């Protein structure tokens, strides 16, 4: 059994492995960063730490997140840097067994980030790899 954080991204309920999550915060002021990939929403200061804010929707190529509505962020560490992943809402933290394999028919944008599915009662929830969300859309093949 492992702990998972359940959140909603683009109305989709997803799970993130709790071991990779530092905390969940409310993001208020995001300092914009010009001339960077679109999934980087800007910078946010959490006490003395500067977090890079990731627009999860843009990262999964689902369009851009509604900045006014989504101000909840999941903090993850990746390769020595801290990131704040903007999500619609954080629902819960649950305990679940090891993830099953992904369903075969996933939209392409989710397929890249999906690591498998976990079960909450009867419901199957997509398990997302935060590293893929941080990395953003794949550059178009040249």
């Amino acid at each position, binding site marked *: 059994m492992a702990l998972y954080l359940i959140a909603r991204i683009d109305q989709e309920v997803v799970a993130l492995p709790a071991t990779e999550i530092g905390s969940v915060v409310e993001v208020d*002021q995001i*300092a*914009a*960063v*010009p*001339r*960077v*990939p679109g*999934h*980087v929403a800007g*910078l*946010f*200061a959490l*006490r*003395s*730490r*500067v977090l*890079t804010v990731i627009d999860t929707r843009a990262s999964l190529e689902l369009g851009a997140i509604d900045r006014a509505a989504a101000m909840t962020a999941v903090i993850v560490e990746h*390769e020595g*840097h801290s*990131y704040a992943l903007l999500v619609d809402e954080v629902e819960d933290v649950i305990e679940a067994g090891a993830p099953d394999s992904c369903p075969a028919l996933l939209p392409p944008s989710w397929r890249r980030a999906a690591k498998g599915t976990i079960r909450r009662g009867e419901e199957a929830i997509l398990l997302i790899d935060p590293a893929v969300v*941080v*990395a*953003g859309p794949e550059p178009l093949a040249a």
Partner: protein
Amino acid sequence: MDDLLTDFIAETRETLEALAGEIVAWEADPADKARLDAIFRFVHTVKGSCGFLDLPRLGNLSHAAEDCLAEVRSGNRIPDAALVSAVLAIIDRIGELTDALEANETLPEGEDEFLIAALAKGGNAPAPVEEAAVAKINVLPAATPTRAVSRSIRLPVELLDRMMAGVSDMVLARNELSRLLRTTGNGNATDVAFERLSLCVGEMRDAITRTRMARIEALFSALPRMVRDLSAELGKTVRLEVDGGDVELDREMIEMIRDPLTHIVRNALDHGIEKPEERKAAGKPEIGRLRIGARQSANQILIEVSDDGRGIDGDRVVRKAISAGVVTTEQAAAMSWSRKLDLIFEPGLSTAEQVTGVSGRGVGMDVVRANIERIGGTVDIESNPGQGLRLSLRVPLTLTIIPALTVSTKGTLFAIPRSAIDELVRPKGDQVRLERIGGEQVVFIRGKRLPVVDLGRFMGLTDAVEPSLLVVLRAGGGERYALGVEAVHDHEELVVKPAAPALMASGIYAGTTLPDNSRPMLLLDVAGIAAAANVGRDQEAIEEEPVEQKKAKAALPTLMFRDLDGVMRGVRLSLVERIEDVAIESVVETGGVQMLPLQDKLTRLHSVSALPASERLRVLRLSDGQNALAYAIDQVADVVDVRAELAPSPVAGPIAGVVLHEGNPIELLDPFWLFTHSVTMPANDDSPLCLVADAEDPWAREVLAPLLGAAGYRVAFAGEPNNDRVSVIVTTAAAIPEGIDAPVVRLRGTPDQAGDESIYRYDRDGLLSALRRHVAGGK
């Protein structure tokens, strides 16, 4: 040396402690490969450090143990009990010697040989000597004096970073508390307590910052040995002078400088300093001199490496650069000495004629400069051929705290490292002028032209605006540009951390920082912006002489180009509006003249010969402020300052004359001629009417009339029906038509003075000014 030694002692002791368990386990099971490897690594490390630190006793011991263990590892020897004890004895001995080193004592010599001998014995013959040796060591530890308490410890950098982050948090919390205290208003006692807290936090921040600092000696102490070995290898005699080892620098920074500095020293020894006989022949002392010094100047550390060798010949560098295709001959011709020397920092250029084992192994000065610039430093070079070379490295004190200036455009703040800033100027008046040349914004600051990068436009924050302030930046390699910003705020010391890879990949940011106001800010990468904004290195600051200077001496910036007939020609830069490529099929030919549509208007296209048979044509668009024309060229060569006087061409035509530039005659275009032959002043009904008396004269019809027309006059011929008032009458031989009251301009056919007011008929200027005078007088 002290720092290094302390590090070594601490490291050895730490490993020894960790190794203690391994040793016991190995003793129990000598065949255990993993344990053996751990012990082997330890003696190997000690051996390496000893060679470096000049500790022969430790070196001999660890070397012997390493050899022996290597045999065991390769399976040539079976680790028996005797061998294990002998190795352990050596490890114990290393521990004792390390303690002795720290306590500054000397252990009795002589016993080391026994220990080594014990190792060297054949695996299956435990000799009495060995027993004796082992016995001896077993006694020794007991005799060791109580170890002096160590005052030096090793810490992981990560822990330091966490402490730093903790203090930064404290500073922010303090600031917030301070704001709250101000708004609520408190008693004196609270203020005093708060002041004390502030002071403590400040001191702690300083102390933690200092934990990252080390003396630059750690970098310099390896040099004497390196210089000695290298010069011996190269057959040179070199005296090394090291100075300023007590300057303190960020530990991480020291590591970043190590490779570039080593490279520079190698270069100096290999290519700089000559062999003794060569030096003698050149009248220099046989012993070469290499000086390395460090000192702190403001918030930078200056490291200078100078030698008295043969120096670098800028012209030779240029020749190499030309043959390597790094620069063109034309560019090279316009280069100053320091620009020529700067070429050695270009990738793929090594001044060494041959690659030796010492340097020239593919790591060039370009890598040196790249490394130094990556940590926010600069490299400067001064060369005196035959006399020596001096390289100056300027690096910030620390990687993490950078004095920076905050600027903003449209409310977005950015930090710029102070070290990259030359000056701040406001575009106002004659000293600082903003201009547009060929669509690009440039600024003339006290006569120097610099490209302008508008921060707002570059960052996509605003459309083009006239920047209210310009920050003149050095992008490295002597290249400068002006960054246009809306406002300049603070000058503060910022704790800079690397930004996330997605941000760093943009190439224009050097890191993130969090000022006291808790709003994250990005530190700009000055060189990166120059590259991203395409502020090319070719756009070298062009000197424009101050306006007060006498005209005769004024250096006129001149654009040099290769004309269609292959001849190098020049045109005054101020006339060149832009250089553009057009499709050759868009050229229209009408009535023997070529026209080119530019911005929806047909513009006269001049060309010295037939247009090339290519698809694209490169044209210079010249403008006199009102009228434009195009001039077809082959390619642009350079922009140079021409100071020489013009030798006027004897015939009027597209070439005004010839100037000497660096010994080569260069033809200059005659803008006057070009414009008079391109511009047809639209003569309208209000234009003054010029009556030409010589109605039958072909010259008057074919030559004079077009000239008058081009000058903006309506032309009428005598005898033609005409109801308008005639402003002026022009005549050569014909009689003046009667009944017309207008001033008369007489032309004559010869250039000699005729004694009257007549004007030579090819004196265009004289004729036109006379016409103007009369027309103006008649009104």
